[in-house]
């Protein structure tokens, strides 16, 4: 494919990063607002959601990060056949570096052996690219989605292997439900509840976790086309909200805002349930770009 003008591509990517970091998408804002009104007026749960609501407004107004942990950057890119991925990655890295210098992103890339921070958010695995070739869009259109995944919530994700004796969880939907709820109990408020779960039933240890994170590209108000999974998704949210963990683990009615479940086939010997925990600061945004690298549509 002819490559996009690099300057325009760079500018579009920088704007995608800025907006993802500073502005929460509409579906999340609505869900938080609905729950905020349901919490008792003088409760700590209400206090937490009031501050969160204030923070959402301030971040957008000041064009500054919603949360100081701007996390790892996952770019999900759907490209036409023949697209120059090398050039795209190079421009993205430049845009990430500039976004860091401007303060849209925190310096988050640390060498685990030396402890040194690279200072520009670049390094092995930073950022992460997920490429997929498509043939469904207009010729030469490119779709780029971005998730900023903070460390606090990433640390409370989990991967279970069924059967799990300790949790009396067998290789069936009841077992899946038990381990998902176990992860919610274990997380308490540490993932900055209210949280949103991305879950994958099946796959191997890598594909399972990858797929669970991809579930976070779905909107909060979408419906799983599989009725069994749709029911499991809403049961998990309903039960979690009756456990009394609440926003920040302060107690209350709002522990989860959503649960999105995907399925991959598995090996006969393995049965993994992979859970990615996303915090309330659910920074997920996307753009469509035309062949000149101009943004034609915002996706969330």
């Amino acid at each position: 494919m002819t490559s996009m003008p690099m300057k325009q591509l760079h500018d579009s990517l920088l704007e995608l990063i800025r907006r993802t970091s500073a502005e929460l998408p509409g579906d999340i804002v609505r869900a938080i607002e609905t729950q905020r009104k349901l919490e008792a007026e003088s409760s700590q749960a209400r206090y937490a959601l009031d501050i969160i609501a204030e923070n959402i407004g301030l971040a957008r107004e000041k064009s500054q990060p919603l949360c100081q942990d701007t996390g790892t950057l996952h770019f999900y890119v759907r490209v036409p056949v023949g697209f120059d991925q090398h050039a795209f990655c190079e421009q993205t890295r430049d845009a990430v570096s500039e976004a860091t210098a401007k303060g849209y992103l925190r310096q988050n890339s640390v060498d685990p052996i030396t402890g040194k921070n690279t200072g520009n958010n670049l390094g092995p695995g930073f950022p992460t690219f997920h490429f997929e070739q498509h043939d469904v869009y207009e010729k030469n259109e490119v779709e780029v989605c971005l998730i900023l995944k903070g460390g606090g919530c990433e640390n409370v994700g989990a991967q279970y292997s069924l059967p799990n004796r300790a949790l009396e969880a067998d290789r069936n939907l009841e077992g899946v439900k038990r381990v998902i709820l176990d992860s919610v109990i274990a997380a308490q408020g540490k993932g900055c509840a209210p949280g949103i779960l991305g879950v994958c039933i099946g796959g191997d240890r890598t594909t399972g976790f990858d797929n669970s994170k991809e579930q976070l590209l779905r909107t909060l108000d979408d419906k799983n086309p599989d009725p069994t999974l749709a029911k499991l998704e809403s049961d998990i949210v309903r039960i979690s909200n009756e456990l009394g963990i609440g926003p920040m683990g302060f107690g209350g009615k709002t522990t989860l805002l959503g649960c999105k479940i995907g399925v991959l086939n598995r090996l006969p010997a393995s049965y993994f349930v992979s859970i990615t925990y996303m915090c309330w600061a659910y920074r997920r945004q996307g753009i469509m770009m035309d062949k000149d690298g101009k943004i034609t549509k915002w996706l969330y």
Partner: protein
Amino acid sequence: MTTKLETPFTESKIRELHVGDMVEITGKLFTGRDAVHKYVFDGGLLPVSLENQIVYHCGPVVIKENGEWVVKAAGPTTSFREEPYQWKLIADLKLKGVIGKGGMGKKTLEACKAFGCCYFHAVGGAAQVLAEKIIKVNNVYMMEEFGSPEAIWEFEVMGFPVVVTMDTHGKSLHEDILNISTESLKKFL
């Protein structure tokens, strides 16, 4: 109802606080997270005294603009990672408070009781609301050794909003919620 906690942070002021109290802090905060806690626990000496001060578990986004440090985002990080070390810092450095999110464990709770220190929970992710309460960056220490998010940033704050979730009386909201939620789950299994 909000309690105002203003500098100097004395033991008697701290011992008056209880779990559930909504507090607004005015005075200095010193950020310190994974690198600093391990460093001090292993015997490292700090270039600044934290006696009667409050440590804030935070890796802020701070940018230099026109020669001045400007805080762009400053919400709390998850405190539990410091649980192995916190009790020693409270004891040795004579800390009066720890601000973070997600709570801490038994060792920290015991140190709070023994040494007159409270754990204050700031709202996780409220990076802008909390950054607004930081009126000045006084200094930054150990930036070269630890990098920006792990350095010790000395902030001057006014009306910094937190909730007491672990007090000097042996009470922890986190322990209570864990027990309540674990018990509630049994109904659904």
